[in-house]
């Protein structure tokens, strides 16, 4: 028999409406006169700061006092159709406007079809959601790159592409993969819908200072091993909760050697390690990528910006709360075998045995994961037959990903019975790929060449696995049902995805180089 829960609401609401009016403001004003807590006895040797601390200090609108978090100013707010409708309703309910439409940009990516854009939506509910975003953007004066715009694309692909993502900025989006923008040395945070509403209304966010987690990757990657393998390796070491409460700062010669798109791949999956953000200090590679883009500073503004950006990297002696270091030269192509992104290993390994784990809950988790994936302890993962290959998502859908994939696929053909979907990250990536003839390489090999969007990474738009199917996916999540109810996902790099597409089995890309 079930009893109803009882709630104690106390002496109802004497504080409602009074909280945070004059009294609270007064205490904040007082605190503003207090000396900064971090003042150093020797003014000539300021305390060394991490890049995150520098960005943070530069964006505090009001310091948190009396137990409150800091109010942090936001430079850029990216909006999409899925996590925003209820936030706009919230604004309407309170009669609020969007405080900074010019620091806000919307696009459609999650629920849109990746088939012919001239056709009507097959999914009425998705169509209603996209239409609602169009209405909201029109009503609140927010620029929108909607269906048919040459700048439409996955929100984390178009920000950098347009030059909106710049070093030292605070960037938010109602999407956990916002950390992607950290590749530029920006503090980029994934937020929920209530926070989307907060940022729309105030261009600020209530935030507590995160801890810092240094991830140092030195050495050089071997051929066939990529940025995706670096991040999958990190996740396999620290687990899906290993970075909770922290921001990853990625550094070391192997990170420096990556192009901006590789760095985006690494930062993108920070949330899969539990970190709400992850970043790479900006350097010449960053500046070269940003220069000349639509929204990049130009002329004298460029010099001013560059001067500011060069001061961003963490100071010598800056303190990290945790750190991990490994050598890129030790890495081989990685793949996941389980049902979260931390359940990954070198593609040459055998499926782990749950019975060898001493912790009962971990043992149960691994057992459940292997049951879902229908994999047996001790079996090799290489050679596992697959049904679908997905090349796309905010992790691996940029032009360099497509070039790498096409280079391996050229002159080869997709194995019989395997469906291969190539989904460019943005309409601009698609245009550029077609200009380079990459679309022909994919089509000639038997792959589908589709319109830009999130597609089978999140499987909201009809691009999905059937129950029981296996995919090799360049996306970021292998959770149960993530790519379609009952579908099973092996996360891997674009090269591993192509090698597997060609053979029809999970394959080591180094054999096809």
């Amino acid at each position, binding site marked *: 028999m*079930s*009893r109803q*829960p*009882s*709630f*104690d*609401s106390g002496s109802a*609401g004497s*504080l*409602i*409406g009074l*909280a*945070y*009016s004059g009294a*609270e*403001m007064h205490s*904040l004003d007082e605190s503003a006169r207090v000396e900064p807590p971090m003042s150093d006895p020797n003014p000539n040797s300021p305390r060394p700061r991490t890049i995150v601390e520098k960005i943070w200090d530069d964006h505090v609108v009001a310091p*948190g006092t009396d137990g*409150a*978090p800091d109010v942090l*100013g936001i*430079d850029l707010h990216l909006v999409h159709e899925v*996590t925003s*409708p*209820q936030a706009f309703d919230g604004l309407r309910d*309170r009669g609020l406007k969007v405080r*900074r*439409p*010019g*620091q*806000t940009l919307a696009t459609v990516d999650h629920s849109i079809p990746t088939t012919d854009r001239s056709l009507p939506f097959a999914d009425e*509910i998705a169509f*209603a*959601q996209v239409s609602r975003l169009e209405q909201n953007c029109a009503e609140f004066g*927010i*620029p929108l790159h909607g269906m048919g715009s040459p700048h439409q694309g996955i929100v984390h692909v178009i920000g950098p592409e347009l*030059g909106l993502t*710049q070093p030292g900025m605070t960037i938010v989006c109602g999407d*956990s993969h916002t950390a992607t923008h950290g590749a530029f040395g920006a503090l980029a945070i994934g*937020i*929920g*819908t*209530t*926070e989307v*509403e*907060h940022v729309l209304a105030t261009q600020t966010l*209530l935030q507590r200072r995160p801890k810092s987690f240094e991830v140092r990757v030195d050495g050089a990657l071997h051929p066939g091993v990529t940025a995706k393998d670096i991040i999958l390796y990190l996740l396999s070491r620290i687990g*899906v909760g290993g970075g*909770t409460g922290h921001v990853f700062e990625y550094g070391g010669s192997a990170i420096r050697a990556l192009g901006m798109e590789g760095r985006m791949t690494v930062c993108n999956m920070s949330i899969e390690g539990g*970190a*709400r953000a992850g970043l790479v200090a900006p350097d010449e590679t960053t500046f070269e990528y940003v220069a000349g883009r639509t929204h990049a500073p130009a002329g004298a503004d460029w010099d001013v910006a560059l001067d500011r950006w060069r001061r961003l990297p963490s100071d010598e002696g800056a303190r990290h709360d945790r750190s991990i270091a490994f050598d890129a030269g030790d890495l081989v192509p990685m793949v996941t075998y389980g049902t*979260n992104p931390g359940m990954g290993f070198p593609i040459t390994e055998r499926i782990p045995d749950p019975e060898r784990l001493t912790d009962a*809950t971990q043992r*149960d*988790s691994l057992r459940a994961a292997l049951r879902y994936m229908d994999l047996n302890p001790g079996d090799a993962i290489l050679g596992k037959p697959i049904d679908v290959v997905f090349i796309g998502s905010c992790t691996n859908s940029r032009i360099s990903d497509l070039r790498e994939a096409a280079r391996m696929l050229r002159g080869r053909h997709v194995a019989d019975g395997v469906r291969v979907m190539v989904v460019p990250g943005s309409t601009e990536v698609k245009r550029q790929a077609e200009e380079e003839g990459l679309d022909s390489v994919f089509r000639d090999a038997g792959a589908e060449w589709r319109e830009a969007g999130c597609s089978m990474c999140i*499987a*909201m738009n009809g691009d999905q696995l059937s129950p029981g199917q296996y995919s090799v996916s360049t996306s970021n*999540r292998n*959770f149960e049902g*993530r790519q379609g109810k009952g579908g099973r996902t092996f996360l891997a790099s674009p090269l591993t995805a192509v090698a597997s597409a060609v053979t029809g089995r999970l394959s080591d890309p180094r054999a096809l180089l």
Partner: protein
Amino acid sequence: MTITPPREPFRSVTSAVVPMLRNDVDTDQIIPARFLKTINRAGLAEQLFCDWRYLADGSPNPDFVLNRPEMAGRAILVAGDNFGCGSSREHAPWALMAWGIRAVVSSSFADIFRVNSLKNGLLPVAVPPEELMRIGSILEAEPDVELTVDLEASEVRLPDGSAIGFDIDAFARRMILDGTDELGYLLAHQPQLEAYDASHPPRVSTLA
């Protein structure tokens, strides 16, 4: 002038428990992505844990905890470590609350889920791992036992009279106890916002 929508102040909840002692439950399980095409918050209770709750033919999965008749009306979920990892979808706490959950007790929570929950008045109650194990053993012996999650005292009270203290974000705690929300607090910072704007010209303009 803006009006802060009033919310019921919340101090404590006493209820039997929905046990889900599995680690790393992600928000894709709490509410699968195909339900995120909604433009409001209707129907989320039925979609909570949908893919675990229903079999392929649409019938309730008899092995899944929420389908046990005695679970109806329970307001406390006891979950394994790192609950709510993955996607930032706020639909996850919305769906839990729509079903009737007011507090989730675990040894840790994913950051975005924790923040989203607090902003909706769903309590993410993090207790030490050994205490979670103790609660788990109690539930195994007495599945219908009631716990009290007391926000004001910041403690979970067990039937044997013992209490487990928990840390919770002090600011969010005050907001939930008072029944106010955070947007009102932010909007009260108008002078600071203007001062900040004056010294921080926009880095980019999306309207340009």
